[in-house]
């Protein structure tokens, strides 16, 4: 049979080109793989969920609590189907699995990106893949947000309301864009079918296409090589081939990882739709977005209110906080490969401590994100008495700039220290080496 297949598919050629691709041996190289596995599990669980989900916000009688004949208890069909999914055997767990996987995918992607950044793996010739990676992050976040809305409970309803308002805050065209994106004035009759289309067709399609491109380019360009490869065989590719060594490693990793998340899903509850209830006008106290969007939320919470008109368009705090500021942050991240001026191809992962400025800038950036995320907890900080309504904004703004600055210089200092120690060590070793002779 092998011969038969080979005659038709030329597997031996595929084998030489792809299946023997060498994978570097270092645990930090698994992060991208974990992201990929999460995506696969997300697609599988997503398909299963889609089979039982009803994408409609028309009102139906809640079969779990029908009310009376004169006053039936009407809930949106989407919400009702979420309740039904929860009532299925393992249904709740399936929802949680999907949820946790999404969170972990973003987390793994973020750490993967950190690895790329700190080891200089974004440098020539891999700039394109850095940009594709950025797009993947952005679309992953959009997919997650649209997924949040689908159960259409009160939480989702409030979320989509804010998302709608943010879209509508774009000057000049906002109203039109928001209505086109969310099927009419909020909450249009077609809002859930529309978002369902985004979440299960459009966005996953984009994600898969980008992932494919990301991996093809990676195979073509080869991984950066870990440092030990330099010592082992300079300018040669060192690693284990996809078939047969890397595949079992990948499989074990994928299964262990999925198993772990399953345990999570079995025991850690998440987004209880029953608790939030169907959409209503009663607000939810201290509603928060997912952790990876908390920084945008924090920025919105501490931005002072302002409004001005420019050429007939309205520019407000919301637009600046929720679109301009994240736009700038994303822009800076997109530009990362452009800050590198070397013209040579990068073969080896760099030791972060050899590039103190890059390291410190990265740490400062993350510190800023963390401070902004903490700012998202402003109401809680005020309730806890740590800050007052009067000083919260000022203090949080000062922290937004002070903490990154401090961490920047701290990192530079620490790196200097490490280098001094390392040099002293080397001198020592040298001296002893001579003494041994």
């Amino acid at each position, binding site marked *: 049979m092998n011969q038969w297949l080979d005659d038709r598919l030329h597997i031996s050629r595929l084998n030489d080109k792809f299946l023997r691709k060498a994978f570097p041996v270092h645990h930090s190289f698994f992060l991208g793989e974990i992201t990929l596995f999460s995506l696969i599990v997300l697609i599988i669980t997503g398909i299963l969920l889609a089979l039982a989900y009803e994408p409609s916000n028309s009102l139906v009688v809640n079969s779990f609590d029908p009310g009376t004949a004169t006053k039936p208890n009407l809930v949106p069909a989407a919400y009702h189907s979420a309740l039904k999914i929860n009532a299925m055997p393992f249904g709740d767990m399936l929802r949680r699995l999907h949820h946790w996987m999404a969170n972990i995918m973003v987390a793994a992607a973020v750490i993967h990106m950190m690895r790329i950044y700190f080891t200089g793996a974004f440098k020539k010739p891999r700039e394109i893949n850095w940009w594709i990676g950025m797009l993947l992050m952005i679309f992953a976040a959009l997919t997650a947000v649209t997924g949040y809305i689908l159960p259409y409970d009160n939480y989702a309803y*409030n979320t989509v*309301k*804010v998302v*709608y*308002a*943010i879209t*509508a*805050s774009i000057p000049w065209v906002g*109203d*039109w864009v928001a*209505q*086109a*994106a969310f*099927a*009419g*004035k*909020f*909450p*249009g009759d*077609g809002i859930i079918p529309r978002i369902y289309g985004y979440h299960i067709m459009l966005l996953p399609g984009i994600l898969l296409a980008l992932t494919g491109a990301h991996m093809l380019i990676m195979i073509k360009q080869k991984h950066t090589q870990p440092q030990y490869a330099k010592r082992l065989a300079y300018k040669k590719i060192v690693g284990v081939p996809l078939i047969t060594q890397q595949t079992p490693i990948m499989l074990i990793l994928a299964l262990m990882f999925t198993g772990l998340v399953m345990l999570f899903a079995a025991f850690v509850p998440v987004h209880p739709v029953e608790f939030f209830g169907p*959409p*209503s*006008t*009663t*607000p*939810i*106290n*201290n*509603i928060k977005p997912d952790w990876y969007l908390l920084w945008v*939320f924090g920025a*919105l*919470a501490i*931005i*002072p*209110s*302002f*409004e001005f008109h420019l050429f007939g368009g*309205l520019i*407000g*705090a*919301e637009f600046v*906080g929720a679109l301009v500021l994240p736009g700038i942050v994303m822009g800076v991240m997109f530009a990362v490969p452009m800050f590198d001026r070397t013209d040579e191809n990068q073969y080896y992962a760099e030791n972060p401590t050899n590039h103190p400025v890059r390291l410190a800038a990265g740490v400062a950036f993350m510190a800023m994100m963390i401070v902004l995320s903490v700012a998202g907890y*402003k*109401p809680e900080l*005020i*309730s806890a008495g740590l800050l007052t*309504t009067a000083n919260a904004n000022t203090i949080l703004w000062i922290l937004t700039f002070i903490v990154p600055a401090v961490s920047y210089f701290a990192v530079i200092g620490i790196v200097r220290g490490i280098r001094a120690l390392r040099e002293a060590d080397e001198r020592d070793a040298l001296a002893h080496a001579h003494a041994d002779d």
Partner: protein
Amino acid sequence: MTRYKKQDPEITRRKFINVAMGTTAAVGTVSLVSALGTANPIFRLTPDKAPPVKGDVLVHASESKEGQPIKVSDLSDQLVRAWPMGKDKDGNNVIRKGDPNNILALYRFPKGQLVEPTKLDATVDGEIVAYSDICTHAGCSVSDSDQGDGMKCPCHSGQYDPKRGCKVTGGPPPRPLAQLPIKLEGEQLVVADFFATMPYPFLSETEWEKFKKEVEEQLA
């Protein structure tokens, strides 16, 4: 890459292909953009989506009492949420909750506590006041603050003072909540006029004026 370039006085094959591809891409993009137009459905103003208009009765919005007219005795310095209830073409009652932005916040304060910039002639005896309950920032529904100092929006901690015309006392909201003129007719609280200022989600007074006209024409 070809090493030898053929010199051709006429249009080269490559050039032709490039132009053809460019044209196709341009035409394709334009047609896609025109298809996007279908993404935005037409908005029809139905009675349940109309804003509070003159003569509407204010009814409870809380689930247990939904639809019951609000009585003066139901009100206090704690927020009570209300819907405007009007009539449709056949004279049946319709609660105008088709547009969630119609949700209202009602308060009753002891005499003398409501002060400017609240429009006092739009309140009942300077005691009962009605506002839009939709945050002017991003449209969340606003609640009483757990700190006991006015109202707080749960979304980005915008704060309002309901005794002073719901002006913004903290957070990102750009404008005060819109006040709704009300009066007492018998036992019932009744809407006396449109919102005095533009409510969420309007961004300019001209837009709001235009919408008011539209509503008047449609409901006349």
